[in-house]
């Protein structure tokens, strides 16, 4: 019995140590990268033989990406992962939260360093692939920071900002774009003769509100845009919960029961008070693709249009996907896929 126990234990430790990078059309590799006392889980899936790997930066802040990948929330297993490989990872303080780090290391600076180390790892382990960043929502915002700091040393070939806003809640300019967004969709709905009475009320409110500034005004804006926002909820089913809880690299209780994600996001939000990234993106010169949805109220086209105009890249593209909301990859998966593939293969 004693020998069986130690034999099985040795076998377990051996099995858990023997994953190697796989160059194939259907790779499924999982690694942990230790950086400044945090252990960051990285899951590489898809077509590594393409020689192109997309590092996915999850939104949030503090939303995990490993469960997102496990249930294939964006549906990329049958689309983007056929063309390229995608590396999903959890930020420090998110998901399993392994290591001996503390909250003091949760910062934009450290997050950027974590991203950089993961990119270096992918480059070293997958025969020097072409690397791209796809940042969704807050992940897009983080990517602007990363590129500003690491552009001169990173091997990233291009950046896809998918519904990634460029402003924060602390910046008054955000609400200028949001007001413009509400004005545009109001006109569109009135012209299309949809809920005319409602949208006429909205128009009256817009005319009477010079600047959206107070909490009440922001709340009112949210109520109005909610009427237009194209929600594309992923139908999370029982099987998804079962997959994540029992058949994933997750310790689901660590994520659900410990409730620290809010601590992490608050720490990052606090740092954003001093950020005005829109004033700096003229320094970003990498090829970039901006994607947003016609009804994306988080990263509205009005805001990303300005980012597109100001970014320093020569090779830049701006796409608004019709009838899409903040998760354009769910609203219009075919168009999203085509835009990303065209950009990466150009």
């Amino acid at each position, binding site marked *: 019995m004693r020998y069986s126990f130690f034999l099985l234990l040795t076998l377990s430790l051996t099995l858990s140590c023997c994953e190697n990078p796989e160059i194939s059309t259907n790779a499924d590799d999982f690694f942990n990268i230790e950086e400044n006392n945090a252990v960051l889980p990285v899951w590489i899936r898809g077509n590594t033989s393409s020689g192109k790997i997309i590092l996915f930066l999850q939104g949030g802040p503090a939303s995990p990406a490993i469960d997102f990948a496990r249930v294939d929330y964006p549906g990329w297993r049958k689309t983007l992962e056929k063309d390229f490989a995608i590396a999903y990872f959890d930020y420090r303080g998110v998901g399993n939260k392994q290591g001996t780090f503390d909250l003091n290391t949760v910062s934009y600076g450290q997050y950027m360093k974590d991203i950089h180390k993961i990119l270096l790892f992918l480059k070293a382990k997958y025969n020097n692939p072409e690397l791209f960043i796809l940042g969704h929502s807050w992940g897009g915002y983080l990517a602007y920071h990363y590129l500003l700091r690491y552009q001169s040393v990173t091997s990233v070939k291009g950046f896809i900002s998918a519904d990634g806003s460029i402003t924060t809640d602390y910046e008054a300019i955000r609400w200028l774009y949001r007001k413009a967004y509400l004005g545009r969709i109001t006109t569109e709905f009135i012209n299309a003769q949809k809920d005319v009475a409602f949208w006429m009320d909205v128009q009256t409110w817009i005319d009477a509100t010079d600047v959206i500034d107070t909490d009440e005004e922001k709340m009112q804006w949210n109520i109005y845009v909610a009427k237009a926002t194209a929600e594309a909820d992923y139908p999370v089913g029982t099987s998804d919960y079962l997959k994540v809880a029992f058949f994933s690299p997750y310790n689901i209780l660590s994520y659900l029961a*410990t409730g620290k994600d809010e601590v992490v996001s608050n720490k990052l939000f606090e740092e954003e008070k001093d950020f005005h990234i829109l004033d700096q993106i003229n320094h970003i010169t990498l090829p970039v693709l901006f994607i947003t949805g016609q009804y994306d109220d988080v990263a509205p086209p009005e805001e990303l249009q300005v980012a597109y105009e100001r970014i320093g890249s020569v090779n830049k593209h701006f796409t608004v996907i019709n009838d899409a909301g903040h998760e354009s990859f769910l609203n219009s998966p075919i168009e999203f896929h085509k835009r990303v593939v065209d950009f990466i293969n150009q």
Partner: protein
Amino acid sequence: MKKLGFIVLWVLVTPITSSGQKQATYLKIAYEGGMFTHPGLSVGIERPLGSKKNAEGPRNEFRWGAKLAFYFHRRYQTGVFVLPGISWMKTTSGGFQYGVGFHTGYLRAFIPNTYLVSDDGSVTRKRFFGTNHFVSVPSFSLGKSLAKKNIPIEYFFNSQVMIQKPYFEGSNIYYVFSIGINYNFN
């Protein structure tokens, strides 16, 4: 490492050697499933506290003992732990058993496939990388004693919540389900 080996030996051997009386002494062998599906194994020793009688008939009893166990969660961690502790068990006249327990001990969490990346881009694998934790484990169990049929075996299902410290901003929780037997070798 030597110290750890000594502690393991001590917690496993003490319950056996602590009494020369003919007292029930159980060898515990169980499947330990991290979140049910991530397999593991445990081996332990347990014996009643205070009672000098053999294990037959309805009774309430406290037991103390220790186990050495591991679970294998391939891409999360392989946990190896030593848990001394105490449990309370009620056995009905029909042999049905239920009880609660509290164990506390040491967990070494081996994190698989861990790499260190230097600033210049070189990558080094950190073999057997892991973290150390103090763990507290409340548990609940259901089982059946076959002593009435003159079979010196109990089988049981045990539900354990492993609370690990230190951990990011507090403690980590991991669920371990076990199913196994107690073999009374006295």
